[in-house]
């Protein structure tokens, strides 16, 4: 009989050391890859979004936007946003083909002129529709868009969250880093702190009212983005989530923007 005791003892001693040898960068990447894998396979979804802008004085204004999203294998997702309110921009549509590190392709449909305009998509840090959300906050999340560093685990509400730093790897980001709180079970993002180019805290995103769809995919019902520097905030309320509605590439052609709807 071979005595395995010394070997087991050795393994027990080495394992934590091996785990510690995995760098914080590798651990961060590993978690984000797992989160990406978890969310893969949704195929497509459609949802309605109410966006409420609030300034420092408390004045509010509202936008209604319908969103359609198509998952694309081997590339970034495609998204179509159709504006229903404010009334003066009703029928305006924005189509985005996101491409990881490459600049996205983007088109705007202007109903008053019946014109589809190709637009330059490098405007990552600009505000979306006058809100505290930047284009880059709402864009498709691709693993290669950031480098990562795992910080720690800590309780967040009823869950335990991984706290990970995201460093933008794409050009023209408005941020030096984002700190993301993400639970380890279903990879829901509960909070993000955004640090500006001067490395000071710029904005905080908090999400809540998560619901599960198709028995797997989690989506938040509320997302609130507070700008600490201007005192402005924006609340996104999501409703009417529908998954696997049968959308395909034909629904995301730039010329199809000219259809009435």
């Amino acid at each position, binding site marked *: 009989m071979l005595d395995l005791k010394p070997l087991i003892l050795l393994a027990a001693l080495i394992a934590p050391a091996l785990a510690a040898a995995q760098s914080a960068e590798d651990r961060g990447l590993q978690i984000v890859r797992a989160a990406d894998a978890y969310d893969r396979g949704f195929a497509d979804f459609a949802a309605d979004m109410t966006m409420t802008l609030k300034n420092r004085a408390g004045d509010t204004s509202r936008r209604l936007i319908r969103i359609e999203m198509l998952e694309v294998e081997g590339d970034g997702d495609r998204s179509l946003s159709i504006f229903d309110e404010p009334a003066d921009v009703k029928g305006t549509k924005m189509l985005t083909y996101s491409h990881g590190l490459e600049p996205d392709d983007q088109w705007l449909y202007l109903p008053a002129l019946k014109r589809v305009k190709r637009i*330059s998509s*490098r405007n990552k840090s600009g505000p979306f529709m006058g809100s505290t959300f930047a284009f880059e906050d709402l864009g498709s999340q691709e693993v290669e868009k950031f480098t990562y560093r795992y910080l720690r685990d800590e309780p967040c509400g009823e869950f335990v969250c991984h706290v990970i730093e995201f460093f933008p790897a794409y050009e023209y980001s408005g941020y030096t880093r984002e700190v993301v709180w993400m639970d380890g079970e279903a990879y829901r993002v509960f909070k993000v702190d955004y640090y500006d180019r001067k490395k000071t805290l710029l904005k905080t995103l908090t999400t809540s009212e998560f619901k599960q769809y198709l028995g797997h995919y989690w989506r938040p019902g509320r997302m609130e983005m507070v700008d600490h520097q201007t005192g402005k905030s924006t609340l996104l309320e999501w409703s009417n989530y529908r998954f696997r509605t049968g959308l395909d590439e034909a629904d995301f052609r730039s*010329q199809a923007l000219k259809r009435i709807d």
Partner: protein
Amino acid sequence: MYRLSVLLCLSLLPALAAAEFSGNVAVEGQVFSEAPQSAEQFDENLTLSFQPHWDGRWNDGDDLWSVELFMRADNKDAGREHADVREALWLHIDRDSEWRVGINTMFWGVTESRHLVDVINQTDAVENIDGEDKLGQPMVHLKRYQDWGVLDLLVLPGFRERTFHQAEGRLRPPLVIDADQAAYESSAEDRHVDYAMRFSQTYDNLDLGLSWFKGTSRDPLLLPGVDAEGNAILTPFYEQMAQFGIDAQWIVADWIWKLEAIRREAESNDFNAYTAGFEYSFYGVFGSDTDLGAIVEYSNDSRPKNEASVLDDDVFVGGRFAFNDAQSSEILAGFFVDAENRSRSFRVEGSRRVGASWKATLELQTFSNIDPADQLAALADDDFMRLEMAYYF
């Protein structure tokens, strides 16, 4: 028979009842700062416009209908008082094709300062001098999506005559254009059936469009004539023409390079024209949220200066400021300068949302250093300011 029509109406009700209604009502005031060329022309006016839109869908969204009307009433300018059906359309969508039957308004092209390739719809010229307002065009339009590009095939039965200012209106040539005396080269007159085709495709960062049109020219020749009282006037003459067009844009980071070029063949003249230039985007200028798009475009027309269009050898330099605020404030400012005689026209247009449903637009247009031989000479005394308040619903 009565019962049948009742049944038919009842069966259509669900589609009609699901109709969505939207649109806008706008009040616009206009002030001209200089004395007019002719004493009968007004100095300021007030006008009301109404643009309702209905649309609906059936057949699980594969079939859609839409109706859009436009009406304008004016306290001084009878020539601007008009009504038009911008859209009365049935749209059928298949996976790789779309059918549009009815009246529609469409746009082809890429450049900002001039729209050479855009020949399908007649210009609603009394609305604005930028030529971007269009009259609805009857059509049967098939769009086919192929792996190698998108093909548009159009049959255009029926022709729309251009709208013109009348004697009391500003922004018109010294001689009044009498639309009632419009004449045609074709004996079919405004019932001539026109044809158009377009191929378009995106090759990575290059968008390319090739188009062809054969039929009644949307741009009339203006011929000397006399009215019932024997006064000298101009009469529109609509020729037959064939036009081949190319439009292209090339996206290189923050640059978008643009080209539109046409070859037009008609009885009076064969000519070439093009507009070429770029738009360069600056984001978050001066550390603000404001984006600035700088636009430079050059327009050329091969006809002799007195026969060519206004933009025969002109440079456009402009900037579009988007403030990205909650009110979607925007300013578009720019000027045209004739490279040969230095005649200049300057225009600035600013708009901003007011409350949830209103939008205010201010437009200022000036003409300066106008060479008497330039086609802009007709508008030399017509500097104006225009304020519009529109309610959207």
